[in-house]
C-alpha cells in the first residue's frame, strides 16, 4: 500500500516535471479574457465553464496568465491586434481565421428564442414580420442559418445590439425586442418562470458549431499555438473537459457537446 502510494507520488512528480520540461512557451506572462455569458462566465460569482477551462489551462501550462473580463467585441479587437493572447468559447469564420487560430473543445447548436405573443412559429415568420426586432450580442456570430437571419435583419434595421446576454433578456421581457439567439449556456435564464412562460424556442436546422480556445495569431507563434492546442487536446482526451461540462449540464448533454466529429 505504502509502496503503491510512493509510486503514484513519484509518477505525479515526473508528470509535473515533464510538463515543466516540455514547457508551453512560458517565456512571458500571457493574457486571457473572459466574457460574461450565461454558464460560460458569471462575473457576480466569478464562475463558469470558461473560467474552469482557463484555470485548468493555466494550471497545466504552469504559465502566468493574467485574466480579465471584457465585452466580446473588445476581445475580438484585442485578439486581432495581438494585445490579447487568448479567449475561450470562440467560433470561427473566414474573417476571424485571418487573425485567430482555434483549439476546439466543444460544439453546440443555436436556437431562436421568441416571445410567444409575437406569433412566430418559424425563422421565416420572424423574418417576414417587419415589426419584429432581433437582439444580438455585438460581434457574436452563430450557425449558418442564424447568421443569415441576423444579416438580413441587420440590413433592414431590425437588430438591436447588446454588450451582454442579460440586457437582451430584459429587452425581450420589455417587448423592445421579440427574439434573440441563444445557446445551451443560456438555458439557466430560461429556468426563470417569467421568461419561460413568455417565450418559445425554435431550433436552427444547422449542424452544431465548433467552439474553442481563441489564440491570437499576432501574439502567438505557430509553434506556441500548437503547444496550447496540444494541451487542450490532452484535456479533452483525459476527460477533464467533459467533467467541466458535467458540472453545468446533464451528463448526456455534456457528452453531446464535448464529443464532436473531426475536432482536432
Amino acid at each position, binding site marked *: 500500500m505504502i509502496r503503491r502510494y510512493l509510486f503514484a507520488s513519484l509518477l505525479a512528480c515526473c508528470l509535473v516535471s515533464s510538463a515543466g520540461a516540455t514547457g508551453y512557451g512560458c517565456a512571458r506572462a500571457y493574457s486571457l479574457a473572459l466574457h*460574461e455569458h450565461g454558464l460560460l462566465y458569471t*462575473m*457576480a*460569482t*466569478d464562475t463558469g465553464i470558461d473560467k474552469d477551462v482557463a484555470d485548468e489551462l493555466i494550471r497545466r501550462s504552469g504559465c502566468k496568465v493574467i485574466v480579465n*473580463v*471584457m*465585452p466580446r*467585441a*473588445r476581445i475580438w479587437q484585442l485578439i486581432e491586434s495581438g494585445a490579447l493572447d487568448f479567449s475561450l468559447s470562440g467560433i470561427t469564420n473566414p474573417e476571424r481565421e485571418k487573425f485567430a487560430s482555434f483549439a476546439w473543445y466543444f460544439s453546440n447548436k443555436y436556437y431562436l428564442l421568441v416571445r410567444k405573443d409575437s406569433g412566430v412559429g418559424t425563422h421565416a415568420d420572424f423574418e417576414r414580420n417587419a415589426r419584429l426586432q432581433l*437582439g444580438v450580442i*455585438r460581434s457574436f456570430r452563430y450557425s449558418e442559418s442564424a447568421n443569415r437571419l441576423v444579416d438580413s435583419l441587420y440590413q433592414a*434595421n431590425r437588430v*438591436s*445590439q*447588446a*454588450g*451582454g446576454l*442579460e*440586457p*437582451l433578456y*430584459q*429587452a425581450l421581457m*420589455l417587448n*423592445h425586442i421579440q427574439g434573440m439567439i441563444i445557446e445551451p449556456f443560456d438555458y439557466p435564464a430560461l429556468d426563470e418562470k417569467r421568461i419561460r412562460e413568455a417565450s418559445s424556442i425554435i431550433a436552427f436546422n444547422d449542424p452544431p458549431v465548433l467552439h474553442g480556445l481563441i489564440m491570437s495569431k499576432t501574439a502567438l507563434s505557430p509553434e506556441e499555438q500548437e503547444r496550447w492546442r496540444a494541451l487542450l487536446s490532452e484535456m479533452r482526451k483525459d476527460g477533464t473537459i467533459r467533467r467541466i461540462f458535467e458540472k453545468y449540464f446533464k451528463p448526456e448533454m455534456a457528452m453531446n457537446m464535448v464529443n464532436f466529429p473531426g475536432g482536432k
Partner: protein
Amino acid sequence: MSIPHAFQMSRLSRLLPWIVLAVTLSVTWLLWKHESRTSRKEVRAQFDFALRDTVSRVEQRVAAHEQMLRGLQGLFATTGLKNRAAFRDYVETLQLDANFSGVQIIGLVDRVPGTQKKAHEAVMRGLGVVNYAVYPEGDREFYTPIIQREPQLGRNWLPPGLDIWANPDRRMAMERARDSGQAAITAKVRLAIDKKPEAQPGFIMYLPVYAHGQSRDTVAQRRSHLIGWIYAAFYVEDFMASLYGTSLPGVVLDIYDGAEPTANALMYSVGNRSELARHDGLHANEYMVVAGRTWTLSLHSLREFDERYGRNVAGLIAATGFILSLSLALLSWFMVTGRERALRLAAGMTEELRHMAQHDPLTGLPNRALFSDRLGNELARAKRNDGHFGLIFVDLDRFKPINDSFGHAVGDLLLRQVAQRMKETVRASDTVGRIGGDEFVVLMPMLADAEAARLLAEKLRQAIARPFVLDGRELTISCSLGVALYPDDGQDEITLAKSADEAMYQAKQSGRNRVWLAS
C-alpha cells in the same frame, strides 16, 4: 419600296420613341434605385460606426477609470486603508491629469464589524479626523462608513463617517464588486455631494479591497477577506464630456440606466431633440454592459447626419435621367418620323395638285377635264347596262352686263353662289361642272326618262332664278338650260354635248330663262 410598305414600316417605327423612352426611364430608375440603396447603405454604415464608436468610447472611459481605481486598490492592498496621506497624494496626482476631469470624488469605504465600531471611531480620530463618528447612528451587524473623500474641496466636503450600506443602489453595486472582485457601478443615483435643487444624474464605481495575501478564489473567500471599497463618483454629464474623441454632429444620443428607456432612467441626452419629429432618420438602441450594469444607448440620426453622409446624388440622377430620357425619345421621334412626315407632305401636295388640275379654281366644281372623264365613265356604264343618263348645259343669261356693271369681283362671287346653289339642287349622284365663264354642265346618271331630266333642269332653273345677295346687294339672274339624253340624243360624248349645247341655244333663242329638251 412601295408607299404602303413604307407606311407599314413607319407604323412599326412609330413605337420606337416610346421604346427608347421606356428603356431610358427604366435605366434611370435602376440607377436611381441603386444609388439610393448605396447611399442608404453608406448612411447606415456611418450610423453603425457612430453607435459602435460611442459605445467603445464609453467602455474605454469606464475601463480607464477602473484602471485608476485599480491603482488605488493596489496601494491599499499593501498599505491598509488608513494611509490617508498616500491616498491624498494619489488623488492630487490624478487631479493634474485632465483625463480624469470627469471624476468628482474618489472615496474610501471601510468595512467595520459591528463590534468594532467604537474602536474604529477612536482610530479615525487618532488619525486626525476631528469629531469622527459613524452615521447614521444605530446598531448594525457591520458598518460601511466613508472614511476619506478626495479632493476635499468646499463643494465636495461632507463630514466623513457616512455609512452608505442602507442605500440600496449603492449597496447592490458594493455587493456585486465584493462578490466578483471586479468593478461595479451603481444605477443612476444622486451623488451625496450634489447640493443643487434639481438632482444631476450620477453614478458611482466601486472596486473591492481585499486583505493583502489572502485567497479570493471563491465568493466565500472574497466576502470574508474584504476590508473595504474604493470608489469614484461621477456626474454623467462630466463623464460624457471627458470621453475621448469628438462626438458626431447631427445625432441625438440618449443614455438610459437599465434596459428600459423611461424618463426617470434618462441619464444623459445630447443633440437637437426638437428635430426628431420632423425627420424620419435612423434609430438604434444598444444595450451596453458597463461594469456589470446595463446602459441603453439610444441613437437617432437627424437630417444633418443623413445629408452629411448620404451621397445625395440620387435626386440628381433621377432628374438628369428623366430629362435625358425625354430628349432621347424626342430625338428618336424626329428621326423616325422625318421620312414619314415628308411622304405625308408629298402625298398631300400631290393630292392638292391633282385637285387643282381637275377642278375649277373659282367655284371648286369639276372642270372640263374631270367632267369629261366622268361623262366618259357614265357613257361606258350606260352602254354596258343599257341605261339612260342626261346631260344639261347651263348658260347664265345676261351675265356679262353684271360683270361690266358691278365688276369681276361681284361676277366671281355670283358664279360661286350659282355653283353652290346648283350643287345643293342636284342629286348626290349628279355631277356639276364649270366649262367656261358662265357655262355649267350637269351630268345626271341613271335617269328613267326625258321627263325626269326636264324636271331636274327645271328645278335648277328655278333655284338660279331666286335672287342672290352679294355684298348686301340683291341681284337676280336667270339661265338657259339645254337637256340631252343618252341614248336618244347622242351615243357618244361629242354628239351628246352637241345636242345639249344646241338645246341650250334653242332655249336662249326662245327668250331665255327656260329649259329646252334636245328631242
